[in-house]
Structures are given as C-alpha cells and as structure tokens.
C-alpha cells in the first residue's frame, strides 16, 4: 500500500516534471539521442565484462549503432549492483545479465527480479561440465550418481564461488532427477574456477562442477576427465563426452548471458535494440568472438527472451523448493 502510494506520488512528480521540462515538444526525438551505456555488473576481466566489451566493439566497428557506446563496470552482489543501477536509468543504459538475475532473487539474495527490468536479448550460452580425476572409479555420470544415491555424503563435490550458482544448480538438478538425497551432499566451496581445477588435479575432491570453458583445456590435456555436459547435443571438440540426456537424465542446463534494459521501455526503444542486436549476432566478428571464448550462440530477441525467462524462473523455483524427498 505504502509502496503503491509512493510510486503514484513519484510518477505524478515525474509526469509533472516531464510536463514542465518538455513543454510542448511537437515531436519526440527518435531514439537513441545520447551515448549508450553498457553496464557490466562485474569487475573487468570476467565473463560479463568480456561480453560487454565485445558487444561494444562490434556494434561500434560494424556501424550498427551511431552513438558512442561506453562500457561501465558496476561490480557487486552477484550482478545486483549493476542491475539496480540500470533499473534507475533511461533506455540509453543497458546491462549484461545471466541466470543469476533469476536465482539471486529466488534465493533471497536480491530484491530484484527480471520483472523489474526489460529483457532485451539472450546472446550466448556456456554449458556446464562434470569432471572427475583421471583415476576416478566413475567412468560416467551414471556411476557417480549411483554412488551418491547409495551414500550422498561419500563424495566430495567441488564448486566455486558459492552455493546457488549454475554449476551448483545443474549438479543438484541432475542428482535430484536421479533420486539422490541432495540435502546430504558433501560440497566443498572454492574461491574461483581456478581453485576448483587445482583441487581436482590434486585429488582433494572426487568430482567438480564447472563451466566447459573452465574444464575443457584440462580435459583435452588429459589432466582430468569430463564425464557429462549439460548441453542438448554433444559439444564440438568434446565429442567423446556424453550429455546428461544420453545418460538417462532428462536435463539441459544452459548458462546463458543476455542483455536487459531499465523498466518501462517504449516499443520503439525495444525495437531499436532488437534490431541492433539481431544485426550484431549475424556479423562475422561476433561469430569469431564466440569461437574464441568457447561461447555458443543462443540468440533470442526481446519477446522470446521474456518468455524464456518466465519458463526459467518457474523451473528454477521448482528446483529450489521441491526437495524431491519422499516422507
């Protein structure tokens, strides 16, 4: 109630403000009419930052956007700082997002949900891998799950940087599908993907869950082995690795990245970004970028993205609340 009134009050002020400042503009200027700000909700160097800078470069180089595009780093709160910042701006500011936008909210770590922003696109995805040391008794994921089902505490599972991220969620979902009591899992948490790789190489853990980009190199170098990936199909360059589906667990788990804008964007503004991003994902430069980063194309326009996020949220919610335990 209070919120509503505050909101009404604010909107009234905005309306008045708009009236007084704009006066009688015969025709609103076409969008965009200012520099475009691209928010990377992380410190320079991460996946989000890399994505943002790549997008900026291509949109600029290919002349898709005439205005200047500036990348702004807003690290903190697993993306929340950047998204809150974006939420308060106008349509000239957009941010990189990922499934954290959904899970942060569902896990009570953020008040923000995708409904507070305008989903504009999904660009790329990474897939999540399960890796075991070379001398692991488990040849594939099924064997691992059998063991977990028998004794969930018997296996040390490594992940980074904390509970509730996609690496963790995909593993839990797979285990749950298999009938493992996931409340008893013995999970060890490391600072970063690098630490997880080290732990696995040093045989400190029995299994690790991380993105393919983090594990692929070591797998190809035969330092440890990937026994499952969360993709729909087997991956290029990892043709020997089975998907979850092939191992009897009906699960596809993308780790996607996309773009969101502030709330209440006009049809025209949304259309502008749709158009620009659609052009961008068709360029050679974009395709090269994906290859170099081991990202996979996962392009969805604004309408598809909204629908996708809705379905994702429902799935995540079910995953997070339904223990799957029988009494």
């Amino acid at each position: 109630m209070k919120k509503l009134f505050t909101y009404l009050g604010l909107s009234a002020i905005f309306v008045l403000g708009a009236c007084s400042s704009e006066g009688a503009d015969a025709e609103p200027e076409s969008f965009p009419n200012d520099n475009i700000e691209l928010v990377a909700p992380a410190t320079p160097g991460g996946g989000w930052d890399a994505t943002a800078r790549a997008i900026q470069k291509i949109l600029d180089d290919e002349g898709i956007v005439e205005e200047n595009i500036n990348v702004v780093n807003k690290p903190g709160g697993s993306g929340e700082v950047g998204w809150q910042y974006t939420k308060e701006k106008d349509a000239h500011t957009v941010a990189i997002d990922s499934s954290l936008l959904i899970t942060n909210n569902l896990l009570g770590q953020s008040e923000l949900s995708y409904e507070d922003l305008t989903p504009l696109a999904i660009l790329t995805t990474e897939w999540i891998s399960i890796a075991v040391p070379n001398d692991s008794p488990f040849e594939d994921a099924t064997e691992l799950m059998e063991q977990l089902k028998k004794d969930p505490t018997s296996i040390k599972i490594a992940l980074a940087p904390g509970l509730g991220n996609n690496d963790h969620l995909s593993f839990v979902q797979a285990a749950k599908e298999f009938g493992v009591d996931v409340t008893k899992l013995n999970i060890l948490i490391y600072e970063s993907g690098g630490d997880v790789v080290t732990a696995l190489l040093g045989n400190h853990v029995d299994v690790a869950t991380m993105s393919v980009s983090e594990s692929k190199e070591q797998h190809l170098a035969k330092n440890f082995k990937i026994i499952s990936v969360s993709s729909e199909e087997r991956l290029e360059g990892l043709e020997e690795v089975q998907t979850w589906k092939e191992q009897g667990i009906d699960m596809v788990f993308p780790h996607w990245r996309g773009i969101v804008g502030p709330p209440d964007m006009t049809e025209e503004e949304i259309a502008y970004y749709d158009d620009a991003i659609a052009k961008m994902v068709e360029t050679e430069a974009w395709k090269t970028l994906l290859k170099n980063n081991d990202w996979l194309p996962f392009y969805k326009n604004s309408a598809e993205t909204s629908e996708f996020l809705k379905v994702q949220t429902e799935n995540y919610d079910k995953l997070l609340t339904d223990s799957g335990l029988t009494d």
Partner: protein
Amino acid sequence: MKNLLNVSLQTKIMGLIVSLVIGIIFVSLSFFTYYEINQSVENSTRIGLQTAKTVANMNSVEEALTMLNQNEELQHLAIRISSQVDANFIIIENRDGKILAHPIEDKINSYNKIHENFKAIVFGGYYSLVSEQNVGLSIVGKAPIFNDQKQVIGVVTVGYLKDEIITATINRVKDISIFVIFIILIGVISSILLARNIRKDTLDLEPREIATLYRDRNAILSSINEGIIAMDNSKRITLMNQAAQNILGLDSTYENKPIYDAIQTPKITEIIEKNQTHSSLEIDINGYVVILNIFPIMKEEQNVGTVLTFKDKTEMLKLMNTLSEVQTLSDDLRAQTHEFQNKLYVISGLLQLGHQEEALEMIQNESVIVQQNNNLIFEQIKDLKIQALLFGKIGKASEKKIDFHIEETSTLGVFPKHITTAQSTIIIGNLIDNAFEAVAQCVEKKVVFFAVDYGEEIVLEIVDSGMGISKEDIDLIFDQGYTTKSGSGRGFGLSNVIKVVKELNGSIEVNCEASGTTFTVFIPK
C-alpha cells in the same frame, strides 16, 4: 416496506444517517483491517527474514553449531533475540533437521522434517514461507548458517504466529472502534437536530402529513367556487385557484409574480399594502365586479402573507335574486288568499242580509274575471314558471288594488333551454314589480303585461300608467343601487334585469311618456 417507510421524519433521518455512517465506517474499517493485516504480515515477513539472517550470521551461533554441546547457549540466545524482535519463536536446526534451540524445551534434540529447510540447506537460500511445522500457523523467515568453508551447517527459523498478527490488528481496530462509536453518536445527535430543525420549519408536521395537507388543499381549492389568491409577505402570488383565474380572466403563469401584475386596481393594492382586513368589499377588479375579502396572515405581529377571497358578483346576484323571487312569489300568493278571504266576507255578509241576488251576481262576476285571466294564462302562456309567476303577480295586484291584466294577444311558448328560470323570473318579476311600484301612488293603477315569441325573438312588454321617469333619472335607473324608494338592500332590480338581458344578448328599451312608462325587452331565442 411500506410499513417500514411509514415512520416519523426523525426516525427516517436518523436511520439514514446512522446507517450511512455505520456503512461507511464498516467498509473503511474492513479495508483498514484488511490492509493492516496485510501490512503486518508483510512486516513480519520482512523482520522475520532479517532476524533470521542476523542470527545466522552471528559468530556465536556458528561456533555453537560447529562445536558440540553448546545447545544451552544457543537456546538462551534464541529466546533473547526472539523477545527483542517480538518474534513468537526462533528455532535453530542443524543440517539434518535436528532441533538445537526451540521455545518448547521438550522439542530440543528431536528432528524436524527437512522439506522446509531444503532451499537453505542445499542452496544457501534466504526465504520466507507460511509454515505449520513448529508452533502453529506462522509466517517464518529462514536463513542458512554457513561455516568458514561457506558450507551450510544449519538453519535459523524466525516465526510470527499468524493468529497473533491478526489478534494484534484486531486489537488496534478495537481501539479505533471507540472513536467510531463516538462518530456514530455524533451522527445520531446531528440527525436528531436536523430532524428537529426540519420539523420546526414544517410546524411539527411529518412529511406525509404535509403531503396530505397539500393534496387536500389542492382538492379543496379547486372545488371552491370562490376565487382565492394567497401571497407571501413580499406580495408575490403563492397560490391562485382555478376559480380565481376564471373570475379575473388570468392564467396560471401569474403564480410567483407580484400581485400587482395580476391586479392593477389601486384601491386593492392600497389595502394589501396596509395589511388591513376587509370583508364583503364590492369592487371592480380588472373590469369584473366582485365581492372581495382581504385577510392579512399574521404570525407573531409580523405579516407573513395575505389571502384574497372573492366572488363573482353576478353569481351572488343570481343567488340573491332567486331568494327574493321565492319570497315575492309567496308574498303574492298570500295576497291572493287574503283577497279571496275579503271577497268571501262580502259574499257571506250579503247572504246573511238576505241579498242572495247580489251575492250570486258577485260570485259570477268574480269567477268570470278569474276565468278569463286563468284561461289566458293557461292557454296562451305555455311556460309553467312564467304561469306561476303571473298568477302570483295577479294576486299581488288585486291586493294592491292595481288593475293588472295580461294582453289577450299574448302568446308565449316554453322558453328555450339557454334561458334559465332565474333569468326569466329576474326579468319579468322585476319589471312587473317596478311597474306596480310606479303606479302605487297614482289614481289610475293600471299595469299591462304583454309577451310574444313569434320569429327570432321573445318580446316582453310591461306598460304602467305611472308618473313616468324624470329626465335626469333616466340615465340613473340602470345603475346599480338607484332607487326611488328609501331603505337599503334595494336598487338592484333594474340593474339586475339589464345584466341578465346582456347575458342573453338581448336588449331593453324604455319609453317614458306622461301617461306612464313602457319597458320592452327583446331576447333572442
């Protein structure tokens, strides 16, 4: 429903206001309660979650969980904090659902089902839910307890009982209710005052009584033949009945206009201005002669209005004339019997003296005259009323020793319908009486009545052998009130005759000579 609405104004207003007030209050209170409960639930949800987070992040909690046998301390902590944040309970469980702190001591060391803690234990999630697991239906916030390795080692649950939230809200509403009762009281009092004030304006009458009065008044006013005009203290017409409109030739548009627009006669406006009472004032209004009464309406020495009532004078005249006509007829008949009595005395005298011959002769003479007259009247005057009138007048004449006879050539059929009895008797009766009076003082007392109705007109002629009328009086005789006789209440005779003749579109002629006067009346059939 009818009976329900058939109550006094006070009850009606009170019922309306009170039900309105109660209705509004009830609706607002319901809304208020609803939002208040929602707000409380929201607050409890928020505070519960925050408290759970705070407790879960406390080092002492983490330590107590990692080191065993510290449950005592946990329990104290949980109880202390729950009283600080007004929570109904704080429960701390380990990963497996074993209860380490619980407001109900007996539950400690027993196990809870893991379901509700699932999100916290597996994913390290913070969340709220509605739970029945612990003390009763409550809103609980849950937070995972992490160890140094960021692993979940337990769950803190902070709960608020839903019943208590609702009870607290209802208590708040109860406090407001006192104020509400006060408002209802104000409503009741103000409605009583309003009703009283209205009743004061309406002379203590209930609306339906007023309505009845109004209906009755309209019925009465329209049934009255007298014209009635009422006006307020600013002399505006507030009421004018149909009769008033008819008599003064006005229409209903004059209502709410000043009386001076409707009546321009200065004399009346003067009287109205002075707030005087007058009755039976004979006066000319807008060219109509009326009998007028004026009553100022006084209320506590203040003039609040005036009522005029008036009668069309001709109406009055007809009434008066009919009365006087009946009277003269009976007088005339009395005269006739008296006359016969005298004759009978003479005859009986003659017989006693033995003059049978003379007596016989007298009887025969008398009967011939009577017979002649009677025949004439019966055969030639066909209108019964005129017959009766003429018989009366014959009697009267013979009493006054006036030689009154009807011209033998008279013929008069039944009068046409549009001529009323009153009209015909006014004309004939008055003219004959006037003739009788004219010859009363003369030596030769002769009056002749002649009537004929050939052709398009009825012609009536009355000739007397009187003194005639002087030159200066000839113009006055038709004026109302002119009389050669003394005394009041007279002098309407001729003017009435003229009025009636005018009504019948007839004309009247007077012919004066030394040997007498002739009145001739022509009435179209």
